[in-house]
């Protein structure tokens, strides 16, 4: 351990909610100029710990030292004053405002009766150059990319004089290229003397960005060690507390007949703009087709169009020879489509109903779950108990409200319900978003088992690792159109990353070849 005083020292932090200890004696030391990763599964206690550091929660016991001084962080404004800034996963920006206006919001400088945006913009420009952020202070938020919006959030904390920056899952919304840029920015910040806490459960990023990592499991800090020379496998095993396999091994696909065929599909978004256009794709029995693309390129509308949640403007969707274009969601479900929706809280479940009721959500109207319009609660509970056991859904019983369960278990419940119906086609949109490696591993195995059983699987994901790991074939979507369809074995992240930006397959391959040659 280094001899210098740590910038942040959290000692023996305990936070109890009733009898449940979210943090159970956690110790954390962050040095100046260090990128310190905080690694842990969902629900391990990372967020609780950071909420304590930023003054949103008070610890039950334990102490916090900033630069060796014991402090009590009893409010967010206190945390601000101590130079702690947080870059949230979900940006808090006003679209119609400029970068400068967003940054000075809440601490506006006035000149007489008017805002003094000019001097603020100058300061922001200077900060942006100092840390290599490349943000135009006068650009409107709605005109800049997600990656740039994140930099605006970083600038916000720097503008307020933060020396300690906390990043909460910063790469969740970024493309591979943007992730590389962010990592460079993190290094720049550290070089200039800022201390960084990086909350993540993505192991590659920890290895690329962090100097030191603290692993948290079940509310306890397990270990702190330098990242150099540690394998992703070792990190994952430590985080989960058992051996984890990343690459779910799967045999070569044995494909059968075409199950789903989509011809020249056009679907409009809520504003009436064509979000999916001239989209054609076929998925065969026994294969997993992955749709890769940056968020907002028509994936949501595509899935909603296939599953009957949104009207299809033109084109056809055919399932096993039967046309299901613009059929009602229930007709499509009954035709043999299982749908794991992108937004499980909005579409996938009724959070204010019980787990048992949620597991019956697609079949409640059929025997044996109901008879003559009367629900058979015994049968519902029997089904729920069976699914909970089979799919390892953990909760305090089947009568708990679905909303009180952890994200991973909610998702397992949705998957249990959708895979239990013996469907010919399973559509999984963002099946593992926000979940930790343990749960991801499990869900991937389930989807692959579905494929091995001769079912067709269509996966939409923004995570290239997931796409590469699961898919037999990969269709890259950009602006609602397929840019290219590649075999998962013949491609890599760089190529997919370029395709996702709209580059054609031949251009992408040429560009990558040039890079290698150079």
């Amino acid at each position: 351990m280094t001899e210098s005083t740590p910038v942040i020292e959290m000692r023996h932090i305990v936070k109890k909610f009733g009898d449940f200890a979210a943090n159970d004696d956690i110790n954390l030391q962050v040095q100046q100029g260090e990128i310190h990763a905080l690694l842990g599964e969902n629900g391990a206690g990372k967020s609780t710990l950071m909420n304590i550091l930023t003054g949103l929660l008070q610890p039950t016991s334990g102490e916090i030292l900033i630069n060796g001084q014991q402090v009590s962080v009893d409010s967010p404004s206190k945390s601000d004053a101590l130079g702690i800034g947080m870059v949230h996963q979900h940006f808090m920006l006003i679209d119609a405002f400029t970068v400068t206006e967003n940054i000075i919001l809440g601490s506006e400088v006035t000149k007489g009766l008017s805002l003094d945006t000019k001097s603020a913009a100058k300061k922001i420009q200077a900060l942006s150059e100092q840390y290599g952020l490349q943000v135009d202070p006068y650009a409107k938020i709605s005109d800049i990319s997600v990656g740039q919006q994140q930099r605006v959030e970083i600038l916000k904390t720097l503008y307020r004089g933060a020396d300690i920056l906390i990043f909460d899952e910063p790469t969740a919304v970024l493309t591979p290229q943007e992730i590389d840029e962010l990592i460079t920015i993190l290094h720049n910040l550290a070089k200039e003397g800022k201390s960084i806490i990086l909350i993540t459960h993505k192991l590659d990023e920890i290895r690329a960005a962090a100097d030191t990592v603290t692993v948290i499991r079940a509310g306890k800090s397990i270990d702190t060690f330098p990242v150099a020379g540690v394998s992703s496998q070792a990190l994952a095993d430590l985080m989960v507390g058992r051996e984890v396999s990343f690459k779910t091994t799967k045999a070569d696909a044995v494909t059968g007949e075409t199950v789903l065929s989509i011809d020249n599909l056009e679907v409009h978004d809520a504003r009436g703009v064509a979000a999916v256009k001239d989209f054609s794709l076929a998925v065969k029995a026994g294969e997993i087709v992955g749709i890769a693309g940056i968020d907002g390129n028509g994936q949501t509308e595509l899935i909603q169009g296939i599953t009957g949640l949104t009207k299809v403007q033109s084109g056809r969707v055919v399932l096993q020879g039967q046309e299901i274009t613009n059929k009602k969601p229930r007709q499509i479900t009954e035709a043999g489509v299982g749908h794991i929706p992108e937004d499980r809280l909005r579409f996938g479940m009724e959070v204010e109903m019980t787990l048992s009721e949620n597991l019956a959500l697609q079949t409640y109207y059929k025997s044996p779950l109901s008879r003559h319009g009367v629900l058979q609660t015994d049968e519902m509970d029997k089904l729920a108990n069976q699914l909970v056991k089979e799919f390892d859904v953990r909760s305090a019983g089947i009568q708990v409200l679905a909303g009180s369960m952890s994200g991973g278990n909610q998702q397992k419940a949705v998957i249990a319900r959708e895979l239990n119906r013996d469907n010919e086609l399973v559509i999984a949109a963002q099946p593992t978003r926000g979940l930790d490696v343990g749960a991801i591993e499990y869900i991937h195995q389930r989807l692959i088992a579905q494929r091995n059983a001769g079912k067709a699987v269509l996966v939409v994901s923004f995570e290239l690792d997931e796409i590469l790991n699961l898919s037999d074939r990969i269709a890259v979507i950009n602006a609602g159109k397929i840019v290219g369809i590649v075999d998962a074995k013949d491609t890599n992240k760089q190529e997919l990353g370029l395709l996702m930006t709209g580059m054609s397959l031949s251009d992408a391959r040429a560009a990558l070849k040039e890079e290698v040659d150079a």
Partner: protein
Amino acid sequence: MTAQKNSFSVALFSVLFGLIIGAVIMLVFGYNPISGYVALLGSAFGSMQDIGSVLTQMTPLILTALGFTVAQTAGFFNIGLSGQALAGWVGAVWYALSFPDMPAYLMIPSALILGTGLGALASAIPGWLRAQFGASEVIVTIMMNYILLFLGNNILQNTMAKGIKDSAETTKQVGANASLQMKWLTDLTQGSSISAGIFIALLMIVVVWFIMTKTTLGFEIRAVGLNADAAKYAGMSAKRNAVVAMAISGGLAGLAGTIEGLGNYLNFFTQNGSPAIGFDGMAVALLGGGSYLGVLAAAAIFSVLKIGGLGMPMSSGVPFELVDIVTASIIFFVGASYLIQLIQKRVQAMDEKAAQTAAAKKAAKVGSATDKNQKGGE
């Protein structure tokens, strides 16, 4: 479960605070609150007739409150209960007077079904407008209250045959073939206007509870009300459920109006405004906190206050209006349940903090000891 418990404690607090505010106002204006409340209870429970009146008062409130609860479960705010009740009232009385010779075993069921159906129709219209065009059911039901009020008065004054009216403003009394009053009940309650309606209302609590919690229809109504997107995803029709839930809601209000017509008043007369049972039913439903037994208890409390309040001026000199202040305060506190929950949380937090400081003191002692050990290790 905890939500259920929460709304129970909110209701209890609200009633208590309402009564306290009533007491304070009585004190301020120089009345004795104890004798005021004693007089209230005396007038509500003093005789069998008083008890009969309380039950008569409760009957439509239970039904309109059930109606409001069903709509609310589906995610709608049915303010049109008054108009829907009126539709049932006018329709049932008109029908009963038009067929004076129909035997009771045909007349009573058909009149009940007709009144319920008219209420359901009056409510299905705003439900359909909401489902089809997204028209706010709040505005539409408010406006329909006026339409139905003046339509009812107009039918009475201009459409009904002279032969079934006592005057331009009042119909004749319905015949024995249509009356819901029962001789033994009337005798037991010394001539109060209680009727078989109270049994119908109690039965409907069970029926509505069963529909909403035990049937696929209730499952769908709850699912659509809680999360329309997830319901659509699961293949339920939000449109159909909007119409069905609103129709059930209005049907219950129509039944309330029918019982007012065939059980309580036995006639229909020109209304100066929308009947109070609609709006009082909303208050009862709010106090009942969405629970079906809660509706029964809340309807009882409201009716005791209302009937008891009528006797207060006579025996204690406290003006009748005081009861309105108490009921209004109760509703205010239910509405401000957030405030009550906040107070509960504060009290809890204070308890926890006391426990925490005690624990922290203990931990500090242990903590300093381990710290020394650590330094020694380095």
